[in-house]
């Protein structure tokens, strides 16, 4: 065994016994070595077995799984022959884990200091009087500002990014030789994500820890990893340096995956991989990817390829690795542009403001006015027929709140919503007539949550059809089938329950339900964020196609700037419930832009090791908008001074209806940003 390797997994296969009594493999013949000072990325979509492999490296198997063959060593110890107490010593000590959702893995009733002290007591040789100093050291190491105050905080008093930092500090408490990171930045805002990744990269360089980074996000992988393993259906299909894997991947799956990621620099729609991965044990004798591969031949069906050295010395599991460069790896979907500035308006949002807080009874009795700033304020947007408006912003920026208000689920405090034909929309859903309701449809983020698990697909689709069109019998059935075909599912789905569908299929049903109402406006609330990238690409393509066929107007909300760019004609940027910038997609995504848009764009992670995010502001999370002045005043890297704190910035118009809400003159913004772009590469 190699001395410098910290984690060494040899030819491991893990499986479970299926209902039929056969053994179904979840992982097949995987070799993985992580050396000291090295960061290895494990990429794959959900169900590819990446988490199972990472947990196996800790000597842990989920219930029902068992080792079929192979070994798993941490330093010199075989993890699966160790006893319970020995494992407990290693786990969390020399082998640390940073879980995906740290908010849930921290004990809610213990202060941060207590939790870190516990980790120190279990996994360090320090004396108890040294604990406090070490806790502060750890918190400083993960760059939490003001560690003294963090120590006495409870987990819920910290933001998601701060919680993640605490989890990293906890893993560092035992001075680990290796760190397992299971999707550590998933679910965080772009700017926070970029900060955490920078921290991890620096930690790896400073401490010489071995790191195993599990993620579905190629953008994150590109930032921190030295080597990458791409997993598909429980196998490693491609292994090489980050550059080899992301710049010139020689496996068709990796190329397809890259093509399905929307890119900031590329306004094309991502192209989706056809089909779905095989179920455990369903890969057959041939290549697991054969059904979805563009260059598969006879040999791919009959013989399973081995992991062999391919082009550029990367390890590839493909018979035709040399041909794989025929497959495109850049998004090439054509975005349909229905937007016509002269088209009739579909809906006006006029000076909307929304409040969550309710005034206390005493204040109301005294007749005091609520002076706290509204959660969402001063939103005036006109949507023309057939256009797609993208709404971007970090979590808490009020994107979903605005959608809920338009749908009537959350009455606005002020302002009005008016249809293009001049019909005023009542504030609350209960006051709206069926025709109003029909014209606006909402598609939710998570289809698991928006489809009633007890209804069949037929029952789900018939609800709007019965309610708005009073369809029954044969007509109902025909229309349901038609809708399913519209979203490229068949009539045979009608009898199924949502639990029998994959995530992408469920979201298609949710989209079909929205289209069932024949609406004028569809509100899409993060509709792809719960989906895998290849499925996301398929859903984006579907929405794009429907836009062309039905001429629907969309409001598309997402935290992912690249996804918004791929689908939207116009983009509005929100910060703390206030509009910062609005304009045609191409203009918003290029200079000049609002300082906040600039921060967001700089922080986006591209699946390219050569493009590093630029961090121009810290990742503080603001809980409430400031009472006066510019909403972005506290984080703005280009803040002018007092004027930003006291006066509301003016809207400055540019051509094409592109406008920016900032005190800095547009020409000045443009020259500032232009300079930086041109200076940066020279200094790098």
């Amino acid at each position, binding site marked *: 065994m190699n001395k410098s390797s910290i984690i060494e997994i040899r030819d491991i296969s893990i499986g479970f016994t299926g209902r039929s009594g*056969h053994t179904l493999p979840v992982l097949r013949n995987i070799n993985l070595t992580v050396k000291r000072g090295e960061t290895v990325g494990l990429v794959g979509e959900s169900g590819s077995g990446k988490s199972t492999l990472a947990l196996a490296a800790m000597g842990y198997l989920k219930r029902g799984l068992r080792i079929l063959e192979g070994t798993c060593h941490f330093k010199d110890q075989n993890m699966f022959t160790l006893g319970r107490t020995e494992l407990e010593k290693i786990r969390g000590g020399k082998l640390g884990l940073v879980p995906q959702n740290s908010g849930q893995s921290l004990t809610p009733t213990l202060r941060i200091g207590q939790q870190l002290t516990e980790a120190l007591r279990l996994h360090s040789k320090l004396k108890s009087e040294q604990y406090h100093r070490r806790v502060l050291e750890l918190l400083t190491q993960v760059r939490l500002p003001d560690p003294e105050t963090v120590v006495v905080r409870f987990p819920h008093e910290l933001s998601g990014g701060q919680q993640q930092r605490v989890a990293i500090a906890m893993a560092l408490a035992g001075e680990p030789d290796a760190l397992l990171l299971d999707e550590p930045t998933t679910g965080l805002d772009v700017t926070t994500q970029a900060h955490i990744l920078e921290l991890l990269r620096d930690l790896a360089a400073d401490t010489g820890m071995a790191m195993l980074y599990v993620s579905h996000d190629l953008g994150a992988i590109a930032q921190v990893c030295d080597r990458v393993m791409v997993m598909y259906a429980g196998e490693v299909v491609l292994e090489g340096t980050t550059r080899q894997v992301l710049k010139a991947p020689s496996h068709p799956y990796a190329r397809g995956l890259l093509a399905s990621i929307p890119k900031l620099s590329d306004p094309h729609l991502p192209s989706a991989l056809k089909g779905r991965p*095989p*179920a455990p*044990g*369903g890969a*057959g004798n041939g290549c697991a990817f054969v059904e979805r591969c563009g260059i598969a031949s006879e040999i791919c069906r009959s013989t399973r390829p081995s992991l062999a050295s391919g082009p550029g010395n990367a390890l590839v599991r493909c018979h035709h690795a040399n041909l794989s460069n025929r497959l495109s790896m850049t998004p090439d979907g054509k975005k349909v542009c229905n937007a016509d500035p002269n088209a009739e308006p579909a809906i006006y949002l006029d000076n909307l403001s929304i409040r969550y807080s309710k005034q206390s009874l005493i204040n109301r009795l005294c007749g005091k006015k609520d002076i706290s700033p509204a959660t969402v304020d001063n939103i005036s947007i006109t949507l023309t027929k057939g256009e797609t408006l993208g709404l971007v912003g970090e979590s808490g920026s009020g994107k979903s709140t605005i959608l*809920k208000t338009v*749908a*009537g*689920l959350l009455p606005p405090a002020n302002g009005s919503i008016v249809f293009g034909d001049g019909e005023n929309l009542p504030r609350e*859903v209960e006051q*709206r007539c*069926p025709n109003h*309701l*029909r014209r*606006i*449809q*909402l598609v*939710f*983020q*998570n289809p698991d*949550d*928006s*489809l*009633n*698990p*007890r*209804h*069949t697909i037929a*029952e789900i689709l018939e*609800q*709007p059809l019965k*309610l708005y069109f009073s369809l029954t019998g044969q007509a109902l059935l025909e229309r349901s089938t038609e809708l399913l075909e519209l979203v490229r599912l068949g009539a*045979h789905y009608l*009898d*199924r*329950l949502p639990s*029998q569908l994959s995530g992408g299929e469920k979201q298609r049903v949710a989209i079909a*339900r929205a289209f069932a*109402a024949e609406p004028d406006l569809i509100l899409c609330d993060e509709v792809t964020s719960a989906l895998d990238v290849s499925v996301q690409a398929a859903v984006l393509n579907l929405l794009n196609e429907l836009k062309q066929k039905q001429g629907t107007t969309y409001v598309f909300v997402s935290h992912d700037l690249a996804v918004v760019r791929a689908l939207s004609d116009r983009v509005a940027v929100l910060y703390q419930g206030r509009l910062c910038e609005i304009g045609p997609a191409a203009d918003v995504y290029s200079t000049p832009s609002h300082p906040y848009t600039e921060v967001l764009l700089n922080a986006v992670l591209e699946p390219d090791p050569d493009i590093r995010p630029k961090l121009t502001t810290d990742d503080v999370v603001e809980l409430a908008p400031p009472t006066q002045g510019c909403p972005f005043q506290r984080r703005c890297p280009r803040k002018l001074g007092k004027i930003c704190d006291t006066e509301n910035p003016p809207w400055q118009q540019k051509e094409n209806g592109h406008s920016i809400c900032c005190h800095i003159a547009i020409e000045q913004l443009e020259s500032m940003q232009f300079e930086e772009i041109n200076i940066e590469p020279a200094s790098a």
Partner: protein
Amino acid sequence: MTVSATAIPQNSTLDHFSSILRDVLSRPSGAVGLFLVVFHIILALISPYIAPYDFKEMNSTMMLADPGINHWLGTDHLGRDVFSRTIQGGREAMLVTGIATPVAVIWGGMVGIFFGLVGGRLDEVMMRLVDAFLSLPWILKMLLLIVTFGTSILVLVPTLAFIYGIPVIRIARAATQDVVARDFVSAARARGNSRATIMRRELLPNVLDSLMVEGAMRWSWMLLAFSSLSFLGFGVSPPTPDWGLMISDARGFMSFAPWGVLGPVIALSSLIIGINLTADALAKSLGIDRAQKATV
């Protein structure tokens, strides 16, 4: 090796229940429990036709006789056959509680789902009233109502259904609150469905599991309550055989003629154990952890 396509259910609700039934039967507790319950129900239905003696036939020469060929469980203090009375002793109890349980679950469930959906101040006030009601001992409430209105079956059924529907409100409301926060309820609201439609179509199917388990539990509680009332003399009037009443009558002779108590005790406890085992297995099959629920 190929993966077979998942079976497509033709009727989701029916399929749901038949698969639950299969799962319940596959568990030892479920199989034993369900056997006991079904056995008791069948016995209650056919016992008048198979009982060897008339339950009110007295025999002054055979008072408190030991078990034997003629009287399998002996006779009571009036010379009546204990076996005949035992197998018929659950008829009244099962009839009353068998009607009162569904009534309790339906009204309690409807009210609970409604409060869960509406929420806000009304829900807050009503739930405090429910809490206040539950804090009184059940026997007190029950006796109060029975003393006021009498002990006929027409009073017992609504009384039991009312008293045991109150805790169902709590369970149904708690289950509803889990569901109400989910997006499909928002979707139904945004679509313009009425409150009644949302309750019936979106909420009820998701709360039904909890209600079924709750119903089974309420049934066993009600049986105990009914027997207790009979034991105290407020339930069934003699000479109709009833387990509670029989235990009450025979307990004075327990030292030398334990048969009189043993028969009804075994009958009553086996039915209640059967119901509890079934409810446990049902809860496990449905993935509801009853240990976490408040005991009321």
